[in-house]
């Protein structure tokens, strides 16, 4: 093992971590908003909205993410109207194209997770909220949403991990995030195995941290599932 080379690779790759994290964070944040909209469409009971959301989820889960990225980055430039539109400065930029594609894709997956979470909220809780005189919106904000978030967190952490992994595809449209820099190093040095080990370790570390963070949030959100702390016995006559 050539530790000097490994260290050098590590230093080079670390500088690409912010790009990866930024891509993942932006697309997950935007995707979650979109996913909530889609989940509500599916649960709205209004047929056109339901069918729109179903079709959207079917299409984005059934095609490879790379095809979606190519469609947005290379495909849209085929139309002169797009090139002349006010959005061209966004659609011309590989970074924003990657964010848009990742966001649209994660929204399709997260929508089903959120829908599952919303469906898992017991009717009794909603009815109790209504009986206390809360408006529908307030029931949603105070009762349904918090319970649904808690329920869907484990599945959601999987989705976040797969988004961090999916950001690697942005390297194919020239974005220098971790995989992009790693590919460049490999083609410069022909030392695929060493570069792979370092890049892989960085991804593993990021994902491990993310899993721990989500697990911590889950722990904080579910005090009712934990055993009550055992209080030390109080000696007779002592006041606490």
């Amino acid at each position: 093992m050539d530790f000097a080379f490994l260290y050098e690779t590590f230093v080079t790759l670390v500088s690409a971590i912010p790009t990866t994290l930024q891509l993942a964070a932006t697309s997950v944040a935007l995707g979650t908003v979109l996913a909530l909209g889609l989940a509500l469409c599916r649960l709205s009971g209004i047929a056109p909205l339901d069918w729109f959301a179903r079709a959207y989820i079917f299409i984005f889960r059934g095609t490879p993410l790379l095809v979606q990225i190519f469609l947005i980055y290379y495909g849209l430039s085929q139309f002169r109207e797009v090139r002349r539109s006010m959005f061209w400065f966004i659609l011309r930029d590989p970074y924003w194209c990657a964010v848009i594609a990742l966001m649209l894709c994660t929204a399709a997956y997260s929508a089903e997770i959120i829908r599952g979470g919303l469906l898992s909220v017991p009717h009794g809780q909603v009815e109790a909220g209504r009986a206390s005189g809360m408006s529908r919106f307030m029931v949603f904000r105070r009762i349904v949403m918090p319970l649904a978030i808690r329920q869907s967190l484990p599945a959601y952490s999987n989705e976040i991990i797969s988004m961090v992994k999916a950001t690697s595809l942005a390297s194919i449209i020239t974005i220098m995030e971790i995989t992009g820099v790693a590919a460049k190093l490999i083609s410069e040095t022909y030392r695929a195995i060493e570069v792979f080990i370092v890049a892989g370790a960085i991804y593993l570390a990021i994902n491990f941290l993310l899993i721990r963070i989500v697990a911590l949030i889950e722990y904080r959100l579910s005090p009712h599932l934990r055993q009550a702390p055992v209080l030390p016995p109080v000696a007779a006559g002592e006041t606490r």
Partner: protein
Amino acid sequence: MTQPSLFDLLGSGPDGWGPALAAGALMTILIALAGYAIGMVFGALGAWAKIAGGPVARGVAGTYTTVLRGIPDLLVIYLFYFGGSTVISAIGHLFGASGFISFPGFLAGALAVGVTSGAQQTEVFRGAYKAVHSGELEAAIACGMSPFLRFRRIIAPLTLRHALPGMGNVWQVVLKESALVSITGVVELLRQSQIGAGSTGRPFDFYFIAAIIYLAISTLSGALLQFGEKRFTRGVRRG
């Protein structure tokens, strides 16, 4: 200048890319099938190690699944494609060959897809084995079946039955992952669409067609899998 329509692009005429795209789709299916088969082997070995292995085997299998599920598939493809070339060139030098020998893209792609899907398959098989009732295994032992007979008659069929839905999911993932193999230059569906997009200047049309073909393949194979699932769970009462 008249532009060929979307249907001319799909046809087999002078402007037609139909046959080329069909060949690409076939290659995509081949890569996915090869990768899936390799993944099944890795999955079976991994599950076996996790269920029945000693501490060392369990540790190796645990590391395998954790690592492969935590790093991007693209990185694994790069490893096999470039790393494979490095190893083959080194072996070539031993036998007096000179220069750089490139690793076949198909093999690198299928191996990479196989190794990554194997990690998911491991968990699918392990979960399915756990769903087999211990009473059924005990009954087999009580009947005096040898371990091999027990595996063939009881464990394998029952595990497979429980594993089918998860295996279907892995297949869909593998199919979509096969698109990444296009970076190795294997002319599968996405690569063929890139070529078409480049030579006609109509990227949207080509990627759109590719997306529809991917959707069609995944929908058809999904229906097939569901049919298989129904057949293998005959006689199981659904709650």
